[in-house]
């Protein structure tokens, strides 16, 4: 046994049987709770054949839901990326009042139920809400329309980019940035040449997770969407509608696509990490950002 593995082993006792039991337990739980449902979704989605699944996805309402989901992700992910970078930059580089409060506040969406988040937006922008009369008078629709769905998704996915980037920026300190400053770098050069390469992994991870959640969010979106078929239903809502209509094969077809989109995100991340590790092993720097 390599010497560096000894402490971890000692930590959980000397018994090899116990060690294997714990490993087995973790693997079994992961397989039953995570992998099995995923396989069931794909198996069911394709149980009526590829042709049926394709037809279910091509149905007008399903297509509209897919397009809306992609549109919402395309709006919210860049916005939350920008927000996450701004928040991390200010927290890591400046000392200001309520700095710790800001960090805690960013994690609020993790603690608050998405349904509550959706309700909050209804209370603010809904017809009976604070801005309701004003919005109605100016013919602006937020609730039961795209803006509401985007707002609710923004709220729910807000911590994903910010959290990891804040942690990494704080851990790495500001010395390299200060060095770049003394060497004459302007703000953009500082960010592009020093900060971004330092945080690229937590940033990438955050963006991918944010994207997966933006596409998959149900609760908050459900409250503000109004469930107008072919118009304000995202994929998760469409799946629920199909399910409630007893159209299980179609529900599973859309669900399989949604799951596949999320999986693609994870696979992309693994591929980039693998490429990075290979590049490091070659003694070169990660190539994908340098080329940008």
């Amino acid at each position, binding site marked *: 046994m390599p010497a560096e593995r000894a402490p971890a082993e000692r930590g959980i006792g000397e018994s090899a049987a116990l060690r294997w039991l714990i490993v087995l337990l973790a693997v079994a739980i992961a397989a039953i709770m995570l992998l099995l449902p995923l396989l069931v979704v794909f198996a069911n989605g394709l149980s009526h054949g590829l042709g049926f699944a394709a037809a279910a996805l091509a149905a007008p309402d399903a297509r509209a839901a897919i397009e809306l989901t992609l549109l919402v992700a395309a709006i919210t992910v860049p916005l939350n990326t920008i927000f996450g970078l701004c928040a991390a930059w200010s927290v890591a580089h400046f000392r200001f009042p309520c700095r710790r409060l800001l960090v805690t506040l960013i994690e609020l969406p993790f603690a608050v139920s998405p349904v509550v988040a959706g309700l909050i937006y209804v209370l603010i922008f809904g017809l009976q809400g604070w801005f309701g009369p004003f919005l109605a008078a100016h013919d602006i629709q937020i609730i039961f329309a795209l803006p509401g769905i985007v707002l609710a998704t923004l709220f729910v996915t807000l911590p994903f980019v910010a959290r990891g980037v804040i942690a990494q920026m704080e851990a790495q300190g500001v*010395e390299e940035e*200060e*060095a770049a400053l*003394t060497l*004459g770098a302007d703000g953009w050069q500082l960010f592009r*040449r020093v900060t971004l390469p330092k945080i690229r992994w937590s940033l990438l991870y955050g963006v991918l997770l944010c994207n997966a959640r933006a596409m998959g969010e149900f609760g908050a979106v459900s409250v503000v969407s109004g469930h107008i078929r072919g118009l304000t239903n995202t994929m998760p809502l469409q799946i629920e509608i199909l399910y409630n209509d007893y159209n299980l094969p179609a529900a599973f077809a859309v669900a399989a696509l949604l799951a596949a989109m999320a999986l693609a995100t994870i696979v992309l991340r693994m591929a980039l990490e693998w490429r990075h590790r290979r590049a490091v092993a070659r003694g070169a720097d*990660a190539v994908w950002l340098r080329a940008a």
Partner: protein
Amino acid sequence: MIELVGLTKGFGAQAVLDGIDLAVPRGSFTALLGPSGSGKTTLLRVIAGLDHADTGTITIDGIDVTTTPPGRRGIGFVFQNYALFGHLSVFENIAFGLRVRPRGQRPTRDELRRTVERLLAMVRLDGLGARLPAQLSGGQRQRVALARALAITPRILLLDEPFGALDHAVREDLRNSLKRLQAELGITTLFVSHDEPEALALADHIVRLDHGKLIVP
């Protein structure tokens, strides 16, 4: 030449710099000595523009730089822990200050390569340009930090505990090469140290700081 007039800086009620008046002669090699917490690193950072004084003025070669951003003060700064860019090769670390120059003042590819190679030779790191900082020894990193600071042809060189993180044998060697380089380049140099023998061996001027005040001998 660096001239400091009436520099003060406080954190809360605590005065970190308490009325500093100092002239560092042009071309001199000056040591800033003092116990830890005496404000010497803060003073160095204020001169570099990384921290701001509450009152007082900073003049470099006759130009008031009190409110000039760090990158336009003509200062080369060597950080205590070197602060090398971990994701960039040694070559790119040294080239950084030249690459970020405003368009039009940037050297051509050939000029850049020649300059960096000259600097690598100057700090005796020839052939190590492709390495990453993590692949270097402490002494080598320190020399990269020095070369990177010198690449922008600064008027002033500031070093924060330049040998603090190094073992004895390496210190001796680096000390000599820094002294030789400084004499060759004739660059006005101010370095922070808490090691009195080291300061005496290296510097031609010594300034002592205690509790944010200069101690006049």
